[in-house]
């Protein structure tokens, strides 16, 4: 490893630092923790830089950030709220259809709270899908799960978000 390698690493990896931080920030829900995770992830990335084949660098880095987050959690012996993947929640009339108007004008803070309330696997799927614009395949690769699992997680995550926002809307209006 020499200066040239570090320069090449900088050029390839640093442009995705925002994406890395955004994912870490949503996963940890804390600025300092997110910075720690990204820093650790970049160290790992640099370590594996030689074996990186040069495919999508952003996905590669995001996968490292994600793995770093989960090992960081284990180190802190905080168990993430794991959810079992399975069938999409039963869709029935018990879940009220929220008003479009409410969602479109959803207060940023409310939306933020709703996202932070999601289990980590759901949250990361939403962040990678809606904020990074990644495909199911890319998200599946990053999370090391089948595409079907990502589809299911996204559906369940959105259902939860809708319920959260609707309930908040109901509380607000009442």
């Amino acid at each position, binding site marked *: *490893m*020499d*200066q040239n*390698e*570090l320069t090449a*690493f*900088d050029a390839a990896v*640093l442009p995705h*630092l*925002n994406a*890395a*931080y*955004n994912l870490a*920030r*949503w996963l940890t829900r804390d*600025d300092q923790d*997110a*910075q720690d995770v*990204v*820093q650790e992830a*970049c*160290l790992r990335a*640099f370590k594996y830089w030689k074996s990186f084949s040069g495919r999508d660098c952003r996905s590669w880095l995001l996968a490292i950030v994600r793995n770093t987050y989960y090992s960081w959690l284990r180190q802190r012996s905080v168990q993430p709220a794991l959810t079992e993947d399975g069938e*999409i929640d039963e*869709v029935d009339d018990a879940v009220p*259809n*929220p008003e*479009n108007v409410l*969602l*479109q004008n*959803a207060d*940023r803070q409310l*939306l*933020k709270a709703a*996202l932070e309330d999601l289990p980590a696997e759901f949250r990361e799927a*939403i962040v990678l*899908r*809606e*904020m990074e614009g990644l*495909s*199911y395949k890319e998200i599946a690769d990053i999370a090391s799960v089948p595409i079907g699992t990502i*589809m299911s997680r*996204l*559906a369940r995550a*959105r259902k939860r*978000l*809708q319920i959260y*926002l609707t309930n908040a809307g109901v509380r607000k209006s009442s």
Partner: protein
Amino acid sequence: MTCNETKNLLNAYVDGELDSAGSIGVEAHVQACPSCLADVENLHALASSIQNGMLRYEAPRQLKRNVHAAIRTANPETRSTSWNWRWAAAFATALVILLVVWGLNRQQANSSEEALLVNDIVSSHVRSMMANHITDVASSDSHTVKPWFGGKLDYSPPAKDLTAQGFRLIGGRLDYLENRPVAALVYQRSQHFINLFVWPSGDTRIKPEDQLARQGYNIIHWTKSGMTYWLVSELNLAELNECARLLQE
């Protein structure tokens, strides 16, 4: 497609992840099913709320710096090599400066050496006429002049007779230039004398002609076949050039 089948695919449909057959199937059902249509609209609304909600965090400024620092701390070789690089760069810069200075000095030295030589050549030419000692061997015959130098120099200067072309060879002389004895061949054009100084130079390349004027004398210099030639005379430059051309033939 039933309502339940459709609802399972609605997220993938909204995300554009269905193949065209699946997409068409969902579309057909949604057009006929108000409940599914409402779901689709809600999913679109939710997606755009998140996408437009300015919810993406920007990495703090210092993060990049910290990442760099962390990498360098964890990989001391990057730091040491970076220092090596800096030293190498500094060394290279110093070397370049040294070479440039040396080159300039050399150039300056060369040009001052050449200026001295030109002065010597002009002086020799002037002296040869003032002292009435223009030739050691007076002959218009190159076969007389050329062998005359034989025992006096470690090289054989060309002694070309150009009488037919209007430059009469009148003889040869031993002179002293550049710390060595050199051959001076003397030509006459009407009332003007021309000194041709010849000696071997280390340079085997053919150098383009060099024309100078000093103290009213014209000087033409060239190098050919490892010999350096200096032609000097009060003769006008055009005629001296002709002489030089004939000598170079």
